[in-house]
């Protein structure tokens, strides 16, 4: 699956602007799609907005404070048809996010999966308890 995904990404990047898969709105130029990072934090805010949802989480740093990370997801339209709602993630939820990091090193990137403390796994294709429709 992952292999297919990378192949598809490669195909997409080869055809450059022609192919803006799934997101259909922009390219992956800002993300390092060759690497994947994981970070754990507390949901600060969910923007259930077009053209993409944005998830903001506060991640404890080594200075005793926290840094805010931003993650881009699919659109609410796309997700609502795949089991998500605007309250699937709520302020205060603990979450571990796997993501494609920003190329420029900024805190955040493209959301891939989210592991919740109750074991639920969220992806852009739907949550693990999402109804198959």
């Amino acid at each position, binding site marked *: *699956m*992952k292999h*297919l*995904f990378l192949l*598809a*990404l490669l*195909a*997409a990047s080869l*055809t*450059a*602007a*022609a*192919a*803006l*898969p*799934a997101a*259909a*709105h*922009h*390219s992956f*130029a*800002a993300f390092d799609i060759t690497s994947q990072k994981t970070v754990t934090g507390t949901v*600060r*805010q969910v*923007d259930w*907005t*077009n*053209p*993409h949802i*944005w998830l903001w989480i506060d991640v404890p740093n080594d200075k005793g404070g926290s840094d*805010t990370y*931003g993650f*881009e997801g*699919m*659109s*609410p*339209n*796309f997700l*609502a*048809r*795949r*089991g998500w709602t605007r309250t699937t993630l709520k302020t205060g939820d603990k979450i571990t996010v*796997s993501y494609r990091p*920003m190329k420029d090193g*900024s*805190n955040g990137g493209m959301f*891939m*999966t989210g592991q919740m403390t109750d074991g639920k*796994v*969220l*992806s*852009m*294709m*739907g*949550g*693990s308890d*999402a*109804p*198959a*429709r």
Partner: protein
Amino acid sequence: MNNAKKFRSEIVAYLVIVVGVGVPALAQQFVSKAPTAADWAALAKLPDFNGVWERSGVGGGGNPAFGTATPAAPRGDQPPAGNRGGAGPQRGGRGNGGGSAAAGGRGGGPSFTPQYEAMRVDAARAPQPEDNSTANCLPPGMPGIMGQPYPMEFLLTPGKVTIVIEAYTQVRHIYTDGRPLPEDPDPKFFGTSVGHWQGDTLVAETVGFNDHVQLARGVPHSDKMKIVERFRLMDPDTMSIETTITDPGILAAPYTTTGTLRRHRNWTISEYICEENNRNYVDQTGKAGINLTVPGTPKKD
């Protein structure tokens, strides 16, 4: 000149202006006749296109295989070009659903006449922009808008097929009332469309595209570019769209692709206001980026 005379000459001048300006404008206007009960009843004899459709291969939703958590979106079925990209919907060869190129060279892309093939090659060798203008919320033009990973609703009314496209909240109007294609249309993202029924197939012809529509990156189209789409039901909830692009002098041959749509009876069209919270951008040099300013905080430099 007395008042009456002055008034008469003003009227004459006014009529000259109205006639002179008005006639060419009126000549382009096709007046739809008021639909009768018979016109509405006739719709029932047409294939059942009404409802919400999504192109095949988007993943999730209608496909239970994607109803559980998977780390990545299936992306085999390449969406068609954006407004800065190549022209074909659902280019062939990479798909796991929905698309195959029926004609054309280069692994499914359109084939160009030598002069324009040289332009394409030059553009392909030049530094590539990192994104296209959809990142800035401009919609893809035709035919790209017909292959977005969002649903479309078809509405049949007397004399017209309307396609409400969720992506970028767009609408296409295909007039089936017998009006001709315009001879000198204003260039538009979606062009101007007329359609007619050939048996159970809706044949839509579209002309008049703006410069956002490109046949391939760096290759313009001419004002002779035309798109013919043939829509037909393959089974009760599957629609086939065959799309053929012609552009004499630029395309070496008609470029045909096919795609399929699946009907989702339990879906409705939602809004997609791209400017609502668009953090993506591409600048004039082709550099793409993302604004990661945390909501509620001052903008970062």
